[in-house]
């Protein structure tokens, strides 16, 4: 077994299994903590509030946008760029279709979607890198972020950066070793993810929903 076969084969599946199991463990663990039912007579719907709360916080309020524009641009740039890269880069589509859905799991889900052209990849990567770098630079240049950031914030950022960087290096698919290094970082990232603040990718909807539900009962949507 070559190093590439190892990182794309057994190591990847172990990393993916840790990712799925630990992330589920953490989410279920949060939910299992439970909450006493709210006995105050409601004025609005908690369920509608949960949904509204989730949607409302995608859109910054203009009153604050003036002050937080760098975060808004950096955050949206990074996340949108990253999702585009993960889901629409040609090698990723091939990997997901052949290594997970069809060949390895033996299931043909019928998922097929078009890949980004090369120029699209370059733009998405640049936007994503720019966003990530802005967010990271602010971690040590902005006094507020410097005070509240911890090692987890930096490790998560660096791992994500390395996954993206090695991915770009492997784009040409000219050397197996570059692809193997990319996969190595992907696997490390997958293992680190559920134990870290990267989990905000899943916990955000619980948090927004909790506030939305509480204040939805009161007829508000803060």
């Amino acid at each position: 077994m070559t190093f590439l076969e190892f990182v794309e084969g057994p190591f990847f599946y172990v990393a993916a299994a840790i990712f799925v199991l630990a992330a589920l463990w953490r989410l279920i663990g949060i939910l299992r903590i439970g909450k006493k039912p709210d006995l105050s007579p409601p004025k609005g719907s908690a369920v509608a509030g949960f949904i509204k709360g989730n949607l409302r916080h995608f859109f910054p309020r203009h009153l604050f946008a003036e002050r937080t524009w760098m975060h808004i641009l950096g955050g949206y740039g990074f996340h949108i760029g990253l999702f585009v890269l993960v889901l629409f880069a040609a090698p990723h589509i091939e990997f997901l279709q052949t290594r997970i859905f069809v060949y390895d799991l033996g299931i043909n889900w019928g998922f097929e979607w078009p890949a980004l052209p090369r120029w699209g990849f370059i733009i998405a990567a640049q936007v994503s890198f720019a966003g990530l770098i802005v967010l990271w630079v602010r971690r040590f240049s902005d006094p507020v972020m410097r005070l509240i950031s911890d090692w987890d914030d930096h490790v998560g950022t660096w791992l994500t950066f390395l996954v993206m960087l090695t991915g770009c290096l492997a784009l040409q698919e000219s050397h197996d070793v570059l692809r193997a290094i990319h996969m190595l970082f992907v696997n490390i990232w997958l293992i680190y993810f559920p134990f870290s603040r990267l989990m905000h990718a899943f916990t955000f909807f619980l948090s927004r929903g909790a506030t939305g539900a509480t204040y939805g009962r009161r007829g508000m949507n803060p």
Partner: protein
Amino acid sequence: MSQIAIKTLLEQTDRDIAAYLEACVHCGECAEACHFYEATQDPKYTPTYKLVPLVKAYKRHKAPLRGIKKLFGLVPDEVTEDELRQWEPLIYDSCTMCGRCTLVCPMGIDIAGTIRKVREGYAAADIIPEGLASARGYVEQTGSPMGVTPKALLAQIKRQEKETGIEIPVDVQGADYLALLSSMEIMGYPEIIGAYAKLFKRAGVSWTISTEAYEATNIGVQIGSAPLARELVRKIVDVAEGMGVRHVISPECGHAYGALRWAGPNLIGRQFKFEVVHIIELLDRLRAEGRIPPGKKDDRKLTLHDPCQIIRRGGLLKEPRRLMHDAASNFVEMEGAGIANLCCGGGGGVSANPRADELKTKAFAAKLKQIDDIGGVDAVVVPCANCRGVFEDGMFEFDSEIEVIGLGELIAETLDAAE
């Protein structure tokens, strides 16, 4: 002492609080919505930073996957008493629990609600500011944080009867509405009692004030002591249910409304046999039913302050605006009015905590600027007695001549002017 605090902090961490602590990405945007940070530019006032003791206790004792993290030495150290004391001013002096930070948080974290839970831990360990401790002492002796006794209340009622020429019903069994007041209103703005008398007489409302349960202020909610908050709510509930009233009126006081309307049933573990209605909500209803006719509009340039616990966290956004439009011909909103309005700087027990005076005044400067930016405002309507006190202190401090008035009084005055 720290063990009691940690135990209580962990008990307070329910699913929602855990979701908040798990979702925070340390982006620091909450600082941009905090008036204390805005006024000082000191990063320690970043709302999420105020939660550090809770975050540490949660990660060490309650967070899922903590066992695996422990193996790698990745859980925080135990919270120490020194640390709790170090954070105490951040938790009590620099958070009014106004909830404005939630609006800007991309994760929608209710930091104000979480601070309320952190205060439970502090109150359990008796690590609270002196000002709040002495207010608690008054409550234990008299039921009122300002030591307002039934005799003092009756004296103020008599004065208002003389002033208005209307008899004010006291301890009337079977009235429809039981009106609560805050200490601040009874001692600082007793004309609100006269305003109630005029408005309710005009609307034909059957109402009463009780000499047993008149105090709406709930210092337990401000300190973060559920046992004390429960006792104060229970006193109101027992009296109101004993009198057979159908509604209890929460006064123009921010946290009192939240304490009774939203937290109350959860504190005593059951729903009430009466409806809790805020005075603003009631006046809006009476106006809609035509029981309070439109009076002569006040033609001064007026603006409206949004008390956080009534508007943003209480759900009464449109009601005061409808009343303002009916009562004033030149009503102007300040920038950011409504759900995102700035706090006065003295809510959540901050105004009862003299140690926080300087910080409160700095935060009020931002509020005053918001009003000054409108230009030419004659008076600001502040439908919360606590905010009103903060406004009056602040106006004096900054030599502002803008008048501060209550909403109930304004409406009562429009009726007077029409007669």
